[in-house]
C-alpha cells in the first residue's frame, strides 16, 4: 500500500520536535524532581546539624531504607498492574516470625550460622510466596477486588503471627546474625548491598522484560491485554507472588537488623510502601510507575525519619512531611496528565 492515510492529527515522523520535548520531559520528570527534593532535604538536615552528613547516618538511613524499598518495590509491581497489596507489612511480620522459630530451633540444635540463615531465608520466602499465592487466588478465583483480598490476608497473616508468638519477639537464632547489619563498605552493609542488587533486578524486570510489559498492559487496560492474548490471571498470580516474596525478603532483612522476628515488625508498613510508590510517581489507578521513582520515594521517607531524629524534631512530624510529599506528588501527576491530554 502506497497511500498514507492518517486518521487524526498531522503526521510528522519528526525528529525536530524530539529534542525540545526531551528537554521539557526532563524538567517535568518526576524522578528528577524527587532527586532535587532529596538533595534539598540532605542539605537542610546538614545545615541544621552537621552530624547528619556522615557515613554513620547514611548507614542508618540505608538500613531503614532496605525493608521499606523492598515492600515498596513489591507494591510498585502490584500498583502498576492496577491492584494494591495491603498485606506487604503483615508478610514482614509473619515471614520474620516463622523464619525466627526455624532458626531458633536450628541454633538450639547446634547448627552453624550460615546453614541456619539459609534455611531461614528459604522458609521466609516460602511464607511470602504462600501469602502472595493466596492473594492471587482470592483475586482470580474468588473474584475479590485486590483491596479486599489483601486486606483479608493482612488480617490473617497479622493474626497468625500474633497467635504463633503470643505477641513477643522471637530470638534465639544465630547469635551474631545482627552483625551482618553492620556497614563495612562505606555506609553499605551486606543486606543493603543485596537490596541494591534486587533493586536493579526489579528495574530490569519492570522496564526491560516481558514481565513488566504485561504488568503495565494489564494495569493500563486489562481488557485490551486479555484481547491481545495475554493470560491475565496467570500474570497477576506472578505479580502477587513476587510481591509476597519481596515482602518476605524485607522480613528477613528486619530479622538481621533486630536479631529477632517480631510479630509487630512491619505492622502498618504497607502505608510506607504505598506512600513511597505514590511519591515515586505511580498512579493507584494502574499503568503508571517506575522503579527509580519508588527507590527515591523510599529514600526520601527514610531520610526524613533519620533527619528528624538528628535535628531533634519529634518524628511525628514525619507524617506531616510525608503527607505534604504525597499531595505534591499527586498534584504533579495531575499536571502531567492534563499536559498529556492537551498534547
Amino acid at each position: 500500500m502506497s497511500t498514507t492515510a492518517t486518521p487524526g492529527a498531522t503526521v510528522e515522523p519528526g525528529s525536530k520536535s524530539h529534542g525540545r520535548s526531551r528537554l521539557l520531559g526532563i524538567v517535568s520528570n518526576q524522578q528528577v524532581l524527587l532527586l532535587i527534593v532529596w538533595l534539598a532535604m540532605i542539605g537542610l538536615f546538614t545545615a541544621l546539624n552537621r552530624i547528619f552528613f556522615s557515613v554513620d547516618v547514611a548507614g542508618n538511613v540505608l538500613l531503614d531504607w532496605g525493608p521499606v524499598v523492598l515492600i515498596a518495590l513489591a507494591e510498585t509491581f502490584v500498583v502498576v498492574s492496577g491492584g494494591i497489596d495491603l498485606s506487604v507489612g503483615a508478610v514482614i511480620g509473619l515471614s520474620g516470625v516463622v523464619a525466627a522459630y526455624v532458626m531458633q530451633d536450628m541454633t538450639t540444635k547446634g547448627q552453624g550460622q550460615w546453614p541456619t540463615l539459609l534455611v531461614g531465608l528459604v522458609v521466609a520466602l516460602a511464607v511470602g510466596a504462600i501469602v502472595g499465592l493466596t492473594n492471587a487466588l482470592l483475586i482470580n478465583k474468588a473474584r475479590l477486588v485486590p483491596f479486599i483480598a489483601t486486606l483479608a490476608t493482612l488480617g490473617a497473616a497479622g493474626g497468625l503471627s500474633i497467635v504463633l508468638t503470643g505477641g513477643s519477639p522471637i530470638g534465639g537464632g544465630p547469635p551474631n546474625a545482627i552483625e551482618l547489619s553492620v556497614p563495612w563498605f562505606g555506609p553499605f552493609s551486606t543486606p543493603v548491598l543485596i537490596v541494591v542488587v534486587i533493586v536493579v533486578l526489579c528495574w530490569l524486570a519492570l522496564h526491560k522484560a516481558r514481565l513488566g510489559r504485561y504488568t503495565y498492559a494489564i494495569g493500563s487496560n486489562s481488557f485490551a491485554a486479555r484481547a491481545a492474548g495475554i493470560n491475565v490471571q496467570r500474570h497477576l498470580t506472578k505479580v502477587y507472588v513476587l510481591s509476597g516474596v519481596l515482602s518476605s525478603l524485607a522480613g528477613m532483612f528486619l530479622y538481621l537488623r533486630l536479631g529477632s522476628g517480631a510479630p509487630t515488625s512491619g505492622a502498618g508498613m504497607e502505608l510506607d510502601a504505598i506512600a513511597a510508590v505514590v511519591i515515586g510517581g505511580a498512579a493507584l489507578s494502574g499503568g503508571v510507575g517506575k522503579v527509580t521513582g519508588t527507590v527515591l520515594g523510599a529514600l526520601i521517607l527514610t531520610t526524613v525519619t533519620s533527619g528528624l531524629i538528628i535535628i531533634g524534631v519529634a518524628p511525628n512530624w514525619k507524617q506531616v512531611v510525608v503527607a505534604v510529599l504525597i499531595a505534591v506528588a499527586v498534584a504533579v501527576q495531575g499536571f502531567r496528565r492534563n499536559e498529556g491530554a492537551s498534547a
Partner: protein
Amino acid sequence: MLGLRTSSSAVRGLVIAGAASVVLAACGSSTPAPSTSSAAPESSAPAKSLTIAFVMGAEADPFFKAMKVGAEAEAAAKGVTLIWQGDPSQYSPATQIPFVDQVLAQHPDGLVLIPTDPDALQASVAKATAAGIPVVNVDTHVTDLTDVLSFITGDNTDGGAKAADAMAAAIGYTDGGKYKVVVGLTSATATTNVARLEGFKAAIASKYPGIEIVDVAYSQSQPATANTNVSNWLTKYPDLNGIFAIDGTNATGAASALQAKGLTGKVALVGYDAYPDNVAKIKAGIFTALIAQDPAAEAKQAIDDLVQFITTKDKAGIVHEVVIPNVVLDKNTSDADLAKYTYVS
C-alpha cells in the same frame, strides 16, 4: 506494652480494625465465642459456682496473656467459672464495647473490665451496675470510679522511678558528674508511656540532677523504628551514657541497635516489659535492667475482690484503689524470679 494497644494514626487503626474483623470472620462466627475455662470446685469454693467475666484489652498482647494465666489460676483456686473475652489484636473502645455487651447478656456474677478508654466505657460500667453486676477495673480505669468496686493497677510512675534508679546505678552516678540519657517511647499519648516517663523524670530531678534527658523519640509500635532512633542517637551523641527503652518494642529496637554498633555494655540500657527474648538478654549483658509489671497479681487481686463482694455483699476490707508495684529484673535476680515475671507467650 505491646504496640497494638496504642494506634498511632487513624488510618492505621482503620486498617487494623478491618484486619481484626477479618480474623473474626475467618473463625467462622460473627459474634466471637467466649473462651470459657471452668475449674473443679475446691473445698474453699462457695456453694453456688460463681461466674466472672473478664474483658481485657487485646488478646495478643503478652501483658494480657500473662494476666490471663494469673486469672485462670486464681479462678481455679476459688472455683470460679471464668469468661475471658476481648478483641484478638486491637486495643480500642470501638471493638471492646460489643464484647462487654455480649458478656453482660450472659449475666455473670461479676465483671472485671480493663477499659480501653476512660470515657467510652463509662456507660458499660453503668449498664453492668444497673443489672446488679459488680465491676472491678484493672490496669486502666473509667473516669468516674464511684460505681466501681475496686481499681487495681501496676504502678507505671513507680516503674519509671525504679528505671531511674537502675539507670543511675548502671552509669555509676556520682554527684557532680554530667550524664546524657535518651528515652525511647512508643507514642506521645499512651498512658503507660506517659506515667513511666513522668516517674523517670521526677526521680532524676529529685535524686540524680547530673543526668540530662537529651532526647526522646517515638517508635510507633515498630521495633525497626526504635532501632533507627537509637542508631541515630548513638551517632548524634558519641558520649551517650544510657538509654531508657520505655516498653517492649523500644527495648527490642534499642538492644539490636547497641549490638550492631558494638556498644553493648558501654551504653547502659534499661528496658521495660519482660518479653522472654528480652529476659534472655539480661543474662547476655545487653540489658542492664528490665522493669516488669505483674499482671498475674493484678488479675488475682481483681478476682479475689469480686468473689468476696459477691459472696458476702460486704465491701469491708476491699481497698478501692490498689497499686501493685513493678519489679526490677537484673543480673542479680534469681532464675526463679526471672521465670516468674517473664510474660508468657
